[in-house]
């Protein structure tokens, strides 16, 4: 290949305390190519990229740009070498316009002229086929538009090497397609694009070459055209993994939960759930799809008893005596005391589901501490639960007394899910159960969900990966802007159809009704 090298990494090593995040990693990036950096969580992808972008400083190794060794000590240095990174979490000032955010922090000659900036931004937008109004304020922008601002910010500073950290995690399928076409245009312009991801189908779709990292080591760099999903997974995980998710047929589904006309407002009085109605059956997995912030969190919390309902009812069908209980009237504690087994794995694991500074036993006690006698705690039973979880879910921990915040993301989630399952729930709700988890842990969680389903538990889970939602769920509830835009059979629906429902607005829905 007569392609020109843009950036070379030689023997880059980075340690955090005793953890070796990158161990002598070599990497070449050419001009006019899209390189995917693939690896599981904790494989050192982001750390490696942060060193190119000047966020971290390598302990050992060299970075060469256009064949010359450079020292990148800060993001400013990186920009001088025409390197720009778009981080996973946006760093934008909400009250400024898109264009103002784009020039923020740049030192330019002469007077500051926002009109010129607007014109320049519009030019970039048009050139690459973005959709963005530079005069709009950030708080008026959608997530994908915010990402566009971040990308243009980097381009505006003249970057030739772009690093995108998990850019698709927050996008709908349609937005992903659009992003990829923009990336292609940049590539044709001779720019180098490094895209960090752990989604295989995206790697195959967009990249020219793939670099695989595992536990801080560079495993291989291969041409995308010459590889396959199975091969990439094997390199990423270190052994062959079956990527099929089971979906047993629901056995004897019974109506368990009726959500009727539920309306919820947040503290500012904004409508978060708008007359949401649906049913949940025992022995099924109901997936909930939607762009982030569409009301998923509020919905689960409303059922669980953490949200005050403005309207509507949540009817729980008790198995034993055909009793129907309206959960709306009950406090969280009353729901527990009625013996209604509701389990909830919240999105914020360490901030809500668990206490990071407590050990596994004390975290088990969150659910059971009230059982102790005479005001004293009984640590025996929770200790048993802790041992059971460590054994059954293969939690790797230095010991039962290690604070859970010191465990890896996958193990934290196993502890949380394990505790919730140990409650023998009839309804198990999970918000983003595999977010941030590696493939092995993800599949452990999927099979736990299926196991619960086979036991007759109703599983409701909010997911962000549509492929998984489609493969695992029996039915999918799609919400947008706090309203239900569709309930579909997951066995007979395509990703694109769900994607459309995810962005369907209220007005479109009303028109349909009429």
């Amino acid at each position, binding site marked *: 290949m007569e392609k020109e090298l843009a950036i070379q990494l030689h023997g880059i090593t980075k*340690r*955090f*305390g*005793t953890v*070796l995040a990158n161990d002598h990693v070599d990497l070449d990036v050419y001009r006019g190519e899209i390189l995917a950096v693939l690896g599981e969580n904790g494989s050192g992808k982001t750390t490696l990229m942060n060193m190119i972008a000047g966020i971290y*400083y*390598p*302990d*050992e*190794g*060299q970075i060469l740009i256009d064949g*010359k*060794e450079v*020292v990148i*000590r800060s993001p400013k240095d990186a920009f001088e070498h025409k390197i720009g990174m778009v981080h996973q979490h946006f760093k934008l000032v909400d009250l400024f316009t898109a264009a103002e955010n784009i020039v923020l922090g740049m030192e330019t000659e002469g007077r500051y002229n926002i009109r010129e900036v607007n014109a320049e931004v519009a030019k970039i937008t048009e050139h690459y086929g973005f959709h963005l109004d530079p005069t709009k304020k950030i708080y008026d922008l959608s997530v994908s538009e915010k990402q566009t601002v971040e990308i243009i910010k980097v381009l505006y500073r003249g970057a030739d090497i772009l690093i995108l950290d998990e850019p698709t995690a927050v996008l709908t399928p349609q937005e992903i397609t659009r992003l990829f076409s923009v990336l292609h245009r940049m590539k044709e312009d001779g720019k180098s694009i490094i895209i960090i991801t752990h989604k295989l189908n995206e790697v195959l779709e967009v990249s020219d070459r793939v670099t695989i990292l595992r536990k801080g080591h560079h495993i291989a760099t291969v041409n995308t055209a010459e590889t396959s999903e199975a091969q990439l997974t094997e390199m990423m995980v270190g052994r062959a993994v079956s990527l099929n998710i089971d979906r047993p047929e629901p056995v004897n589904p019974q109506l368990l939960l009726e959500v009727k006309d539920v309306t919820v407002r947040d503290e500012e009085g904004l409508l978060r759930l708008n007359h949401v109605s649906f049913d949940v059956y025992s022995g099924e997995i109901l997936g909930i799809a939607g762009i982030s912030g569409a009301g998923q969190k509020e919905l689960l919390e409303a059922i669980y008893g*953490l949200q005050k309902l403005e309207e509507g009812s949540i009817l729980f069908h008790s198995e034993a005596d055909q009793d129907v209980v309206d959960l709306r009237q009950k*406090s*969280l*504690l009353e729901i*527990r005391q009625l013996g209604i087994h509701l389990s*909830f794995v*919240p999105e*914020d694991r360490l*901030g*809500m*589901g*668990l*206490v*990071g*500074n*407590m050990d596994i036993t*004390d975290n088990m*006690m*969150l*659910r059971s*501490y*009230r059982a*102790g006698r005479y*005001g*004293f*705690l009984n640590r025996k039973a929770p200790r048993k639960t802790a041992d059971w979880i460590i054994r059954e879910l293969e939690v790797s921990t230095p010991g039962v007394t290690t604070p859970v915040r*010191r465990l890896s993301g996958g193990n934290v989630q196993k502890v949380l899910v394990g505790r919730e399952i140990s409650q023998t729930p009839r309804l198990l709700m999970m918000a983003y159960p595999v977010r941030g988890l590696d493939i092995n842990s993800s599949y452990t969680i999927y099979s736990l969900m299926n196991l619960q389903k086979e036991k007759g538990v109703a599983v409701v889970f909010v997911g962000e990966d549509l492929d998984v939602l489609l493969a695992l769920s029996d039915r999918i509830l799609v919400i947008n802007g706090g309203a239900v835009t569709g309930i579909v059979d997951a066995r007979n629906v395509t990703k694109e159809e769900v994607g459309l429902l995810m962005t369907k607005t209220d007005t479109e829905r009303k028109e349909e009704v009429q």
Partner: protein
Amino acid sequence: MSKTRHGEAREPLVHLSKRASIPPLKAWGIRLLAIALGLIVCGLVAFVLIEKLGQHPERIGDFYNAFIKGSFSTSRKFWKFLKNIAILLCISLALTPAFRMRFWNIGGEGQTLIGVLGAIAVDFYLGGQVPEWLLLILMFVAALAAGTLWAVIPAIFKAKWGTNETLFTLMMNYVATFLVGYFLVIWVPSGSSSLGKLKYGKLPSFGNDYLLIILIVLALTIGLYIYVNYTKQGYEINVVGESVRTARYIGINVNKVIIRTMVLSGALCGLAGYLIGAGLDQTVTADSVGGQGFTGIMVAWLGKFNPLAMILTAGLIQLLNQGASQISQDFDVSGAFPDVIVGIILFFVIGSEFFINYKIHFRGHHDHGTGKEAVK
């Protein structure tokens, strides 16, 4: 451009990284080292500030000896040392449940002072008119009620309207101080505003004057240790302190826990006030607590809110206090000098926590702990 090896050329001179964990022995080593360094700096400062020492450098040994002498030279001093620890520890223990809940109660001073005032008010009005045992009980009730009231007002405001507890409890200190001044004017119309020692309402003493107080605080220490570690309420306090959202998620009534815990915290401050009022002074002044409500915060913090560890930190602070007053006596320097010494040493002790939490890397050194810590 000449080729340079990466690390040496322009790597930042120092950079910090947070430690994942540190062996306890090493942590205590760092703390002891800090105290030693603090003492050395104290010595240097003393050379400059104390004329007698500047002229007679051979007396530097006496300077350091005073720290021991201040608390251990006579049995009277030793008992006083223990008593001072007990009172300071009692206030620190009172603050502990609130701090474990991350409720920044810096009103220990006022809650204790109002406790003293409550006890002495009962003493003033009823002393001699009711049997001594009943008087002592009534003083006890009044002290606890007053302390509780002072703590629960900010707690209710925090629970209901989310007010800032730090400012609120701080302001309550001033209200307590001025309230004492107000009552002194009423009780002592002559204008001296000094109440003098009252005849009645003194805790019985056996063995030593201070023994009862010391035993009460010792029992309280053990009780509170059990409370925070082994009871449901203690557990709820920890959960609320770590994460209010987790507490709500498992159905804890957060407001109830806040108020309940502050009732406890205030009542224990009231108890400290009772020990000061009925156990020691039989009088009240605006300075009855003498800033121990604030020192208590430091004791609790340095002891990591662990009641047993706080015995040590309270001991350290009182050792320094008494040692420093001994120095000002022996070397005939201003009464402000002890504060300078205590300040310097605490600066080092508190500063050492930084080195326990962070590791410092210098340019060119690349051991980064992997080797060392792996061996351990």
